[in-house]
């Protein structure tokens, strides 16, 4: 067992962090989606393909590497559709041509239920018997909250097939019957859109009988990705807060020398360390021990999102008045952390799910 990142992995983290230090400064993050930055993320850093097979142009590494990127991108709050893209790409194993497009930079939107990603949001119409034949299946449905949906070229849709079974489909953003409506968000560093499907042609991604498993796997990968991103946000919030406390003088002393504040930072650091270990373990489990994800993924999301929220809330408090201004980034961390808690299952719901799956809450 080796819990240390390899030298290559450490190098990857350093490169991504250095890139984001240049391209995701506060004013850039606030300016929103920047296609040129995304292009560099694809072309220079090859981040969308990092966990995809070499056969489709990817780097053939594991989700651990994608996780490093997720953590760093979360840390920087880069406004880019990396999370849904790298998660959605894991559902494209049967369609190498679509994976190749992801490697080339096509962003994915996850058309999932924002409360419970294991539920279908659309259904394949019975009138088109396309599930088995030549004509493509047609999807109807609405996903009201698709992260970064307005930037997606491709949607991965959780739907019921014509037989009523769960299945995953891919839908082109530009296809007929597809309508994408951007929606304003509280977390201004990440957009959402509503996806309306009306007899939209789709490509089936999951084999018959395996849809539920594919959807579960997608949801679990999503939770792991959220956990990693949250750890990045929490790490940023804590490290900037600690740096501020070391500088800021009040009552003739550096704020960080006040024991009450030091102890609160220590509690946050301990919680965040636990969350970080959990997120890293979960990132490894995506490829290394997928059978553990049923329990580990929901708990990782629950634990990490909550840690990030607590750190970000304290970051505002510990910054005092300045932390309450629009100008300071503290509110961006806070809003992202809370949105991560809210999207795709609350910490409480996911804790319960994890404990149920572990057999602890099953009725006797």
């Amino acid at each position, binding site marked *: 067992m080796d819990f240390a990142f390899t030298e290559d992995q450490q190098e990857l983290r350093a490169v991504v962090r250095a890139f984001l230090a240049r391209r995701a400064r506060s004013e850039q993050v606030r300016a929103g989606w920047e296609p040129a930055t995304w292009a560099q993320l694809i072309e220079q850093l090859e981040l969308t393909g990092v966990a995809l097979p070499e056969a489709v142009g990817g780097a053939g590494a594991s989700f651990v590497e994608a996780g490093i990127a997720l953590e760093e991108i979360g840390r920087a709050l880069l406004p880019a559709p990396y999370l849904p893209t790298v998660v959605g790409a894991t559902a494209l194993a049967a369609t190498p041509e679509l994976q190749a497009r992801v490697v080339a930079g096509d962003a994915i939107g996850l058309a999932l239920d*924002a*409360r419970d990603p294991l539920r279908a949001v659309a259904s394949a119409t019975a009138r088109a018997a396309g599930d088995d034949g030549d004509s493509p299946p047609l999807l109807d449905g609405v996903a009201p*909250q698709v992260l970064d949906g307005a930037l997606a070229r491709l949607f991965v849709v959780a739907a019921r097939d014509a037989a009523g079974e769960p299945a995953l489909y891919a839908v082109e953003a530009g296809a007929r019957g597809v309508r994408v409506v951007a*929606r*304003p*968000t*509280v*977390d*201004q560093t990440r957009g*959402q859109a509503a996806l309306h499907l009306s007899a939209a042609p789709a490509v089936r991604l999951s084999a018959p009988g395996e849809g539920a498993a594919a959807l579960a796997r997608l949801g679990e990968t999503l939770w792991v990705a959220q956990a990693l991103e949250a750890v990045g946000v929490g790490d940023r919030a804590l490290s900037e807060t600690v740096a501020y406390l070391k500088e*800021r*003088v*009040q*009552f003739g002393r550096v704020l960080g020398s*006040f*024991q*009450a*504040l030091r102890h609160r930072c220590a509690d946050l650091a301990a919680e965040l360390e636990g969350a970080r270990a959990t997120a890293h373990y979960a990132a490894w489990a995506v490829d290394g021990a997928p059978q553990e994800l049923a329990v580990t993924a929901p708990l990782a999301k629950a634990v990490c999102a909550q840690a990030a929220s607590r750190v970000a*809330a304290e970051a*505002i*408090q510990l910054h*005092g*008045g300045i*932390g*309450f*201004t*629009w*100008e300071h980034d*503290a*509110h961006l961390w*806070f809003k992202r952390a*809370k*949105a991560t808690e*809210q*999207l795709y299952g*609350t910490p*409480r719901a996911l804790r319960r799910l994890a404990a149920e799956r572990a057999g602890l809450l099953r009725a006797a």
Partner: protein
Amino acid sequence: MDLRFTPADEAFRAEVRAWLRDHLVGDYAALGGAGRPGREHEGLDVRMAWERELGAAGWIGLDWPRQHGGREATLLQQVIFHEEYAAAGAPGRVNHVGEQLLAPTVLAYGTDAQKRRFLPGILRGTELWCQGYSEPDAGSDLAAVRTQARLDGDVWRIDGQKVWTSLAEHADWTFAVVRSEPGSERHKGLSYLLVPMDQPGVEIRPIVQITGTSEFSEVFFSDAVTAAENIVGAPGDGWRVALGTLAFERGVATLGQQIGFARELEEIADSARASGAIDDPEIADRIATAFCELRVLRFNALRTLAGDPTAAAGAASVAKLLWAPWHQRLGELAIDVRGVETTLAASGDGYALDGDQALWLYTRSDTIYAGSNEIQRNIIAERMLGLPRG
């Protein structure tokens, strides 16, 4: 111990209620909760007119001496006024700072001339005030004053900056704590000046907050002037006067504030019932807990205001340390009741939030402003518990 209101108090309550019923109509009634925390800049013209209505009817300066136009109302009558005012849904007051902070200071420390000059404008609702205490690098450390003032003939000349000033662009006057003895440190060498806002030397820049709205401003003084006689207390005695101002905050508005809190909680519970979120036992417990704790806030305020002498030292800090985190938790509850849809902003120009979202974000400031949680804990530890400073 008798926790009923006296017949005289009930009569006073009836008088307040009747007046509000008759006068809080038309434009005034249409304001709703405008001017309350998070909405301080709404409907300002109408609210200034309303302030003058209040003044004309004698509802300002309730506790002032009769010789200065007050009613010499008791603490409990003031409480009653604020309760009725809140219960009627009357708008947020525009001159809280003038009536509750500056006026008692002038009454306690001011000259007769100052009383004649400044009290009537407050009493009639015609002169608005803003506060000039906080400075950019001072944070909770009020003594870290860097704004300078020097006496130049018959005027004070002022240079420096204040921050977290409410309604600065509407105020006629500010009271500012300034360093009048060059080279002095901390509590020494400070003076308490009254400065007109409408002059070339005063510049105001709004501070945008995490809600995307602006409730506070920075105020810059560049060779701003005020007449030499506009100093309260002696030169160099400003710290004592400034602390005096803070001490006048007796919390008479607390129970009125709690009526607003109760309304917010009821709206959240209504929303939870309508959506079915109330069937989530965690949500139900959080609503129940908020309800119980709000009652605790009320009992605690009554105990302080209706005079248990053992509750004196640190009572204001206890009240703040209880209500601010309570309100913050209420803000969290407001969006948790609705769930993931609250990640979507309201439609509208720019960054638009609905009421629940605004409450959630705005309440982050409750534990920071007017004495942060940390400052309140320091005060309680020192004054109530007698624990030594580190």
